[in-house]
């Protein structure tokens, strides 16, 4: 069963001559553990695709399935529960709560979902530890670097049983070393079975993905093949 299955999704804002076609007949399937990058310039529809995949917005037509369940059939309450328990979001501006430590930020979605505080804290610490973020658990967001904040945001997005991570320009204004740290973490999360979709205009980020799909004016115009084997880069020398 696919982690995410977007079928023939169209999203139109407005009507008639002023209508804006943000997405036109888009298909996207992501398997558990797979990392797909959606690459396109600003205004190409990639953020809209993420918000629709994460049930934050509804498509004008077409269907979205998360973990096999049709979002339209789930109803509003069902979609809320799905957003709380199964889908993690990471945005460009880190969205950590300033008054909470790193560990408390990660525990927050669990607590909001009714997990008792003690168990939520333990799960959050385990998640941070598991992702190599054991240092600085008790520090507050303003005591963390930009790269550290974004790694905590990713830990928060995948804590608990979340199977789908949606990230919109997750490395934002980070320098290349910190950006690479974030992408390595996303791949580590994928190795644990979480499906990831990253929207970006940046080819260096997209290159971390198993597959890259290209959006232009709301349409999926192209895609790369399966992640190529780097061995083809080697052994291309002149030696007989």
């Amino acid at each position, binding site marked *: 069963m696919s982690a995410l299955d977007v079928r023939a999704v169209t999203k139109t804002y407005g009507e008639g001559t002023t209508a804006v076609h943000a997405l036109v007949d888009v298909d996207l399937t992501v398997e558990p553990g797979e990392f797909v990058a959606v690459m396109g310039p600003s205004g190409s529809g990639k953020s809209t695709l993420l918000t629709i995949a994460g049930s934050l917005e509804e498509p004008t037509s077409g269907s979205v399935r998360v973990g096999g369940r049709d979002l339209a059939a789930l109803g509003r309450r069902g979609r809320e529960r799905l957003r709380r328990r199964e889908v993690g979001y990471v945005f460009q501006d880190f969205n950590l709560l300033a008054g909470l430590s790193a560990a408390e930020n990660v525990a927050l979605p669990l607590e909001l979902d009714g997990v008792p505080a003690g168990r939520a804290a333990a799960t959050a610490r385990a998640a941070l530890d598991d992702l190599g973020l054991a240092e600085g658990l008790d520090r507050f967001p303003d005591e963390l670097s930009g790269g550290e904040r974004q790694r905590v945001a990713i830990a928060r997005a995948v804590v608990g049983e979340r199977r789908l991570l949606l990230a919109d320009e997750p490395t934002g204004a980070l320098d*290349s070393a910190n950006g690479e740290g974030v992408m390595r973490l996303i791949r580590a999360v994928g190795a644990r079975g979480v499906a990831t979709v990253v929207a970006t*205009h940046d080819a260096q980020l997209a290159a971390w993905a198993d597959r890259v799909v290209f959006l232009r004016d709301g349409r999926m115009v192209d895609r790369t*093949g399966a992640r190529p084997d*780097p061995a083809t880069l080697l052994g291309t020398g002149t030696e007989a």
Partner: protein
Amino acid sequence: MSVRHALLALLSEGPKYGLQLRTEFEDRTGEVWPLNVGQVYQTLQRLERDGLVTSDDDGDGDDGGPQKGFRITGAGRDELDAWLRTPAIDVAPPRDELVIKVLVALRLPGVDLAEVVQVHRRHLVELMQQYTRLKEDASPDDVSLGLVADAELFRLDAVVRWLDAAEARARQAPPGEPAPVTSRPRLPRRIGAGR
């Protein structure tokens, strides 16, 4: 890529054999630039002719084969030092051919520029996926490999960004026929140079 100066750099650490030089060269460039034995010996011969290295020639007419040792001379050290500080010359980057293709696509009737650009963009991103994976799979201690992969990634990224900019520029151009070629400013010669 100057094999000549890479060999001088390796010899500046101490005397080495030819085969050893080849292995060390490949190790330090993250095995991304394989070198054949013939290239190594040919370069060493030229370095020796130019007085930049000396070999332990036993005078029996035998060239010594893989066990022949080489050492750097004072002139060799001076040459290496000067090379390190010489700005790298722009050696007609491979994207020049791409520039020509995009220029042609812009003018050719019936050709969709965006589609041509996308074919190249996809190819470049696929290459970048390979280099990224190379970097990801490498040991964190392998600084050389990371560095070489980054160099390619930044170079390819620049080409992708140029394609993005080219597509955006073409879109913003007013609709209608492109201006006649003769009214265009002359391109720098390098872009037109055949490759």
